[in-house]
């Protein structure tokens, strides 16, 4: 979980901050109740999480929430999910749709 200290140290418009948010969203959907974004490598394969369909839908909702903080008209659609091979792909998708 991002602490208040970390939040105040990071610009909410920076790709690094979005990267932390995305990793946190992935880890929460994975089931961790105290996720540590830094513990998740950008290169980690999404297939390694073994997500079922419910988890994919929930992840799409979580990523959409992050995007809408910056760009209320955008969302993650089902076709977007097919290109998410690594964690980095998720981060890039959110940055691209956020328009940062």
């Amino acid at each position, binding site marked *: 979980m991002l602490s208040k200290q970390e939040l105040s140290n990071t610009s909410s418009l920076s790709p690094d901050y979005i990267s932390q948010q995305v990793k946190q969203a992935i*880890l*929460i*959907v*994975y*089931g*961790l*109740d105290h996720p540590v974004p830094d*513990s*998740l490598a950008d290169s*980690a*394969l*999404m*297939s*390694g*999480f*073994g997500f*079922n*369909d*419910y*988890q*994919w*839908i*929930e992840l*799409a*909702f979580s990523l*959409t929430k992050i995007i809408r903080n910056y760009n209320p008209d955008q*969302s*993650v*659609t*089902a*076709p977007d*999910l*097919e*290109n*998410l*091979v690594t964690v980095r792909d998720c981060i890039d998708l959110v940055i691209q749709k956020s328009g940062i």
Partner: protein
Amino acid sequence: MKRLWGILCIMVCCTGELSAQKAAGFKGWFINNVKIANSMRTLDLSEQPAQLQLTFPRYQAHSYLVNMGIAVILNNNTTLNYISDLNVEYHRNTLTDAEQNNFSAGYGFKWRFANAGAADYFMAGDLQYLYNELNATNSLGGTFLLTLFRDGKRLNWNTNNFRLNNRLLFNLAPFAGFQMQEILKSRQNGMAGFILRPEFSINTSLAFCKKAGPPYDKLLAIFCNYTGRDDAINTTSFKEHYTQLLHTGINYYLAYSPFEVSIGASFNDGSDPLNGRTQQQYWQVSVNFLK
């Protein structure tokens, strides 16, 4: 045996046909959009591995077991609360006294229809054409079940629960709903008719994981899936009453990528009328592949 290979070829070809439209980025598309497992049935959400087993020497004309389903996930541009797939599956077991020989093809979906703060609510369902070779029965079937999803809490549903510094995880997945089957034609007199079965299922698993992660690779997993159903409405001449299916066992994991490979032992007891599985009880040791 020729028919068996024919059906398996059709399953692979159906997948290839749909995948041909997605030549670009095929690896990523395949990883995320094609599922191969024991079954794509709505109830089998713990995704048991596909199985293919032959026994030697053969004491009977046929001695093999096939439990395999292939699904291609369909995309939808307009919503993100709905995932659907086209699937085919084949189940044949000549290794037990009660043979099974069942083919099905159809459409499956998961729909997130409500959010109530503490949890999200889903409907999982499928519509199938089914053919049971043993009594030449043609059916249309449908299953509609409700379940819930919760994450980020001490007790999660339909996702992992981690304990002991993330070395131990367990899953809880409850389902409740009903199953419909319209038997159109059968070799057996009195078999045709409509059946409505209220049903529930509880899927659980407990796994010990490697220290490195996330994601955490499983080392050893114990699972237990139980389904109960009753033919509340049955216009055929064959009453089923309460039927149940218990599938429990243990898996030891050998590899994780690109396929999850495990060796396992399981105990199976019960029946699954929709899939042409009559009452049987057996132990099974197998090498499993899950994609």
